[in-house]
């Protein structure tokens, strides 16, 4: 019985108050002046001491980006973005080569993490979660590296990976999301400053859950992190990603790219709790979250699972996807997205079946409150080669109040007659009847709303690692404060 399980308090929580992460850290920043051109890219690359091939790759991406236009097909509306007004590099200033251990990290930074509820020092002792914390553009501390090293797992910032494991990076970078993929992916490829890199060697089960916390701190900077995760044959890794950003009146751009590669019988589980600043109750400020996440089941019997809980950002544009290339490979997408106030989200997934006997599952739960506008957009494509492919999609929307909206755009392309595809969708309102039932049993109205919403999300929360599930619960509760009545 789930009730009898006592959950230990999680070491980090986003959910203490309305937007607890909305403070700014006063710390000296090294920031490039706003603007983007080839010189800026050369400077970024030079500051990071990158090899020639990577600079060329960036420049090619930049040139491609200049020929592209922002996508306008999604159900989100925002004023034009001036890409020349953004600073593309920001790093905490520090002595020498960067911290070798936590002791060398600026205490103010550590304080920031404490406020966010990520006590790195405690993390070292606590239940096996290694944290690669990215503060603005540069990774400042990586814990547990040693223990991972014993297992042969590489977990470091992508900058370090470029330096220490250039062959791996060069082999896989851009192999899932090419620089020509889309406007934001091209921009990210040109200017990405940091992010995480994971390589799990053949037959290794990563001994702990890996976790990265990204944080946008400096004003007027975009964050363009790049994450690359490779699970070699028969390897397994579970990766957790949490995001917060301070409250500011202006909008900030976040255009990340995440690439996952699963080889033969490898499994990758990627979980996200995204709580970027959503803007205030009038829709002022907030993060524009334009993210490209894609996994490639490159080997036979590979499996990639995306689980996301999206409560933040003024605008979310994000479709974590799976390319099911290997025969018998499996793709999963479990999503909870909440939009309230004036938040807009256009999110979903793409499942591209290429191999035989490939299976995919999509469970999407959208909650819309206030003036929130939310769309599920999903593509299931089964190629001619995808003999006996199967998909099951379930998209449910829950509306709170009568000024919000929910939309569903399922795209289906099936080119093989043996394929099976099921799609279920529902839209419901939190009923007065449900609320009254709970309140009659003595449960206060706000708790009742949380109870009903959490019930609605249960299928997705069950997919999260337990700590994250607890956090997701609390995050939803905080996000829903004042959503009713």
């Amino acid at each position, binding site marked *: *019985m*789930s*009730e*009898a399980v*006592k959950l230990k308090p999680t070491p980090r929580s986003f959910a203490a108050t309305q937007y607890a992460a909305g403070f700014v850290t006063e710390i000296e920043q090294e920031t490039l002046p706003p603007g983007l051109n080839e010189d800026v890219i050369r400077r970024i690359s030079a500051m990071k001491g990158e090899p020639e091939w990577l600079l060329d790759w960036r420049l090619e991406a930049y040139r491609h980006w200049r020929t592209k236009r922002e996508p306008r097909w999604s159900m989100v509306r925002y004023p034009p973005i001036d890409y020349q007004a953004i600073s593309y590099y920001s790093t905490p200033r520090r002595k020498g080569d960067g911290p070798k251990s936590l002791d060398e990290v600026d205490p103010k930074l550590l304080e920031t993490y404490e406020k966010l509820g990520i006590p790195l020092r405690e993390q070292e002792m606590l239940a096996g979660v290694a944290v690669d914390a990215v503060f603005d553009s540069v990774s400042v501390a990586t814990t547990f590296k040693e223990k991972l090293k014993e297992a042969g797992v590489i977990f470091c910032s992508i900058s370090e990976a470029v330096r220490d494991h250039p062959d791996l990076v060069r082999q896989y970078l851009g192999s899932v999301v090419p620089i020509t993929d889309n406007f934001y992916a091209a921009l990210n490829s040109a200017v990405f400053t940091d992010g995480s890199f994971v390589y799990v060697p053949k037959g290794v089960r990563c001994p702990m859950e890996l976790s990265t916390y990204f944080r946008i701190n400096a004003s007027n900077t975009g964050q363009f992190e790049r994450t690359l995760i490779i699970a070699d044959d028969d390897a397994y890794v579970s990766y957790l990603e949490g995001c917060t950003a301070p409250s500011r009146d202006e909008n900030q751009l976040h255009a990340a790219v995440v690439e996952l590669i699963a080889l033969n019988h490898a499994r990758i589980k990627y979980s996200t709790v995204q709580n970027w600043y959503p803007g205030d109750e009038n829709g002022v400020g907030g993060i524009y979250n334009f993210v490209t996440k894609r996994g490639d089941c490159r080997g036979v019997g590979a499996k990639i699972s995306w689980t996301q809980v999206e409560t933040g950002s003024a605008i979310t544009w994000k479709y974590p996807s799976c390319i099911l290339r290997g025969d018998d490979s499996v793709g999963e997408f479990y999503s909870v997205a909440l939009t309230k106030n004036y938040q807009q989200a256009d999110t979903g997934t793409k499942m591209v079946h290429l191999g035989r006997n490939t299976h995919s599952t999509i469970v999407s739960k959208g909650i819309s409150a206030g003036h929130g506008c939310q769309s599920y957009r999903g593509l299931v494509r089964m190629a001619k080669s995808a003999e006996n492919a199967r998909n099951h999609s379930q998209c449910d929307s829950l509306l709170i109040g009568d000024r919000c909206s929910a939309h569903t755009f399922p795209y289906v392309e099936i080119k093989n007659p043996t394929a099976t595809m099921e799609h279920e969708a529902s839209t419901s309102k939190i*009923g*007065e*009847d*449900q609320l*009254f*039932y*709970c*309140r*009659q*049993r*003595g*449960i*206060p*109205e706000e*708790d009742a709303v949380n*109870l*009903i919403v*959490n*019930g*609605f*999300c*249960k*299928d997705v929360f069950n997919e999260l690692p337990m700590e994250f599930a607890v956090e997701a619960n609390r995050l939803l509760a905080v996000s829903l404060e004042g959503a009713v009545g």
Partner: protein
Amino acid sequence: MLKIENLHVAADGKEILSGIDLEIPLGEVHAIMGPNGSGKSTLANVIAGREDYTVVEGSVRWRGDDLLAMTAEERAWAGVFLAFQYPIEIPGVNNVYLLKAGLNAKRRAQGLTELDAMDFMALVREQASRIGLEEDFLARGVNEGFSGGEKKRNEIFQMTVLEPSLAILDETDSGLDIDALRVVAEGVNRLRDPERSIVMVTHYQRLLDHIVPDVVHVLIDGRIRMSGDKTLAHELEERGYDWVKAEVGGA
């Protein structure tokens, strides 16, 4: 005691209750009978605090508290329980979790310590077995996929755990077969107590064979037209509600 005076209630601009006067002392079981559309369920829901209705006039007091000034949850904390005619499904919300949240909110409001999971589960298991509910039933979603009879049994189960001082049963007998009716009636009878009032809203006299009321009221067109002892229910069964109308004169 429950004291209702001159209660007028409207919904969508139409008057449904037109001056109810009713007193139910502690320790008594009263039945409210009446034809369809007479306002029985409205009365039950207004006492429990449903907001779809407008109270135009009158008062509802429970042990001195002005119920109409309280929210639905405050009324629950004051001991009011409504066994719903149509218990609603809440998908994904664990049946027992809902009950625990309700019970502990009530205990907090009463200044009692909350029950921990162990004590709560012991209580729940005991009450569930008394009402003939299987363990797996407890772990299911609230009323999710329950049969009509299971939903009604779940209401009585919740009632026995929450131990209300004022229990209102809205058409609890509808949809129950004879065996289930007996189990439910036993559950209610166990709750009869000098410190508890029970109101049974029902259409038929059938339930009253199992839960024998102290007083029977007849509600027609939004008013209590007649009150009497348990024999009134039998008389109604034989002669129908038109007989009451003829006795007291048309509205």
